[in-house]
């Protein structure tokens, strides 16, 4: 264990800090969940790529910088610390990207990773179906082989970013008559392929952040399949591991929220409840604990280890921590909590943050599913009945 950064790491931190200071949008962008905001965020994604900051851990050949996970964490700390916008392509760079890196062919890596890092292709994910939410192995949408194409029929839902994105990735049943985890394949598809209908779904906050996708004889080339036919579940679990375990929610984002919460508390200190004071101290403690744990996971991966079922512990922790911090802010704001804009005209980011935080314990596998995984796979508790 060594709690100090190297000179090289310090220099890297200084480099990203100064780039962000010079290039970060001067004003907050409109929310990513609507058309106008999506376009602004994609433009920012391309500006990041122009500075070669799209995905620093990827090899240079694919638009990355070939850096290690500690440098990625430093990048993330500076990124979120500077107040830079959300990443429009997070489904691509943090979930699909590492999965392609592990399972893709050289041809697929060149074809998909480079435009992903450049922000030229924005990705949506398509896991859930109306009858397959927490029980993802209940997937029914089929992609049966017809020569050198799959023909997709069925329906996906809660597809993040799909209202506006360019491409999607998901799990489809490629073997007729197959059941549960078997016979599924991981397929990438252009969202503008004939036969795909997108129906944006209005979310709690009023914006169409996700969509339903209807597939009607959608023809997708077989070379868009990642890994072998029928190996989709294994690939999807790897993606989920990245999602829950390391990349999707880096600690910097929550540490920045904790700092904003401390600042909010200082403004409201005179009329704050004693419980809020403890909640604010706890926000710092828990975000720090999450950061230490993430640094340890990164070091473990760098030493040749992998992320296992402990990713579920992570997902439970960050999602419930985020909700608790935003709830504390709502309580501190009191009567102003419901205002979309404060008296001074600034956006009430805490309201947006609180609403968004309610989705954390649901998406990427509900926290109930994560608790089952924790109990059964980490603790070894019995799998019996419906439990």
């Amino acid at each position: 264990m060594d709690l100090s950064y190297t000179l090289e790491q310090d220099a890297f931190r200084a480099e990203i800090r100064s780039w962000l200071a010079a290039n970060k949008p001067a004003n907050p962008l409109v929310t990513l969940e609507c058309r106008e905001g999506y376009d602004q965020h994609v433009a920012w994604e391309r500006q990041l790529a122009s500075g070669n900051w799209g995905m620093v851990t990827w090899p240079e050949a694919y638009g990355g910088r070939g850096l290690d996970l500690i440098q990625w964490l430093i990048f993330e700390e500076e990124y979120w610390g500077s107040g830079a916008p959300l990443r429009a392509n997070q489904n691509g760079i943090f979930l699909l990207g590492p999965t392609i890196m592990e399972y893709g062919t050289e041809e697929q890596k060149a074809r998909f990773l480079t435009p992903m890092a450049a922000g030229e292709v924005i990705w949506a994910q398509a896991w859930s179906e109306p009858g397959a939410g927490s029980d993802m192995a209940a997937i029914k949408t089929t992609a049966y082989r017809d020569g050198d194409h799959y023909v997709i029929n069925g329906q996906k839902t809660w597809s993040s970013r799909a209202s506006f994105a360019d491409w999607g990735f998901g799990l489809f049943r490629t073997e007729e008559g197959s059941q549960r985890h078997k016979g599924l394949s991981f397929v990438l598809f252009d969202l503008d392929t004939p036969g795909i209908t997108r129906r944006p779904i209005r979310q709690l906050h009023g914006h169409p952040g996700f969509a339903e996708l209807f597939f009607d004889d959608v023809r997708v080339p077989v070379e868009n399949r990642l890994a072998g036919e029928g190996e989709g579940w294994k690939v999807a679990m790897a993606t989920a591991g990245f999602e829950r375990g390391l990349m999707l929610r880096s600690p910097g984002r929550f540490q920045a929220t904790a700092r904003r919460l401390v600042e909010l508390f200082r403004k409201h200190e005179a009329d704050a409840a004693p419980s809020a004071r403890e909640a604010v101290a706890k926000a710092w403690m828990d975000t720090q604990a999450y950061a230490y744990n993430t640094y340890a996971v990164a070091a473990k991966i760098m030493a040749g280890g992998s992320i296992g079922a402990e990713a579920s512990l992570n997902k439970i922790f960050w999602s419930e921590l985020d909700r608790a911090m935003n709830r504390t802010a709502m309580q501190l704001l009191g009567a102003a909590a419901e205002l979309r804009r404060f008296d001074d005209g600034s956006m009430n980011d805490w309201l947006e943050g609180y609403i968004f935080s309610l989705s954390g314990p649901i998406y990427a596998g509900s926290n109930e599913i994560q608790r089952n995984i924790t109990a059964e796979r980490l603790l070894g508790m019995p799998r019996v009945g419906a439990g």
Partner: protein
Amino acid sequence: MDMLIAPERLELAEAVRDYLSGTHGPEVLRRLDAGPNRDPAIWQGLVEMGLTGLLVPEEHEGLGMGLLDAALIARECGRAALAEPLVDSAFVAVPWLLAQDQTDDLAAIAAGEQRVLPAHTINGWQADGDGEALDSVDPLRNLSALPADASDDPHLLDLGALMSAAQLVGLAEAMLDQAVEYSKIREQFGQPVGGFQALKHKLADVAVALEFARPVAWRAAQAMDDGAASAPVHVSHAKIAATDAAFLAAESAIQVHGAMGYTYEVDLHFWMKRAWALGGAWGSRAFHLKRVDDAVIGGALAIGPEHTFA
């Protein structure tokens, strides 16, 4: 920057774990509870492993290891609910003596011939001291009245709090293990009770609390070893996180055991009582929360994503 504990550093702690699980099981706790609750043979075994000299510098016949190594072994002492005052003497008092350049007794301490039992005003008692006896809920703790010359040195307090946090991690881990094992064998409604989600989710919450208490404790130990100015804040964070995890583990474990958990017959109570004791020792929750509060809300510590290791 490396938050990984090197495998070779874990080896000694793992050897201690194996040794204690082989020689210091629940039957030993029951024997100690029934008779004299200190056993020279157990102490001698710890001495022979070199643990009394773990933090004593090599020139004084010790192993010259660091506070992180000691914290990893304190965790094992918690896991075994060890009654002998190894942690207090070798991991709390020794580094405190070293910090004051008091080296006269170190060789005797390393050899196991002498113990130094720390007395700090924050506790109001001394463990394994010579004063008038006090009655602890933990039958394996020997408390006595605080001596008049007790210290109020914050450095001693930090060492005591850090090593309590490490023991609490081990205590919580042991209680979680006991609850999981019991949930596999106790059957109701025709199945092991551990198959019910209500119990799975309860114990999953303990696993989460532990996962995010452990790195805090190790980071605090390293910060103290480094002599970092911010170390006291990280020690307080560790004490709070470990205490909360241990109380959650205790309450969840007794619930999983049902009425059996409320008996003296089931082993759980030894661990639970030690957790209650150490949770309040070396600074209450209020004390440690105030130190975090002063640093974070008071502004003494740089916070936010750019300051993870401030």
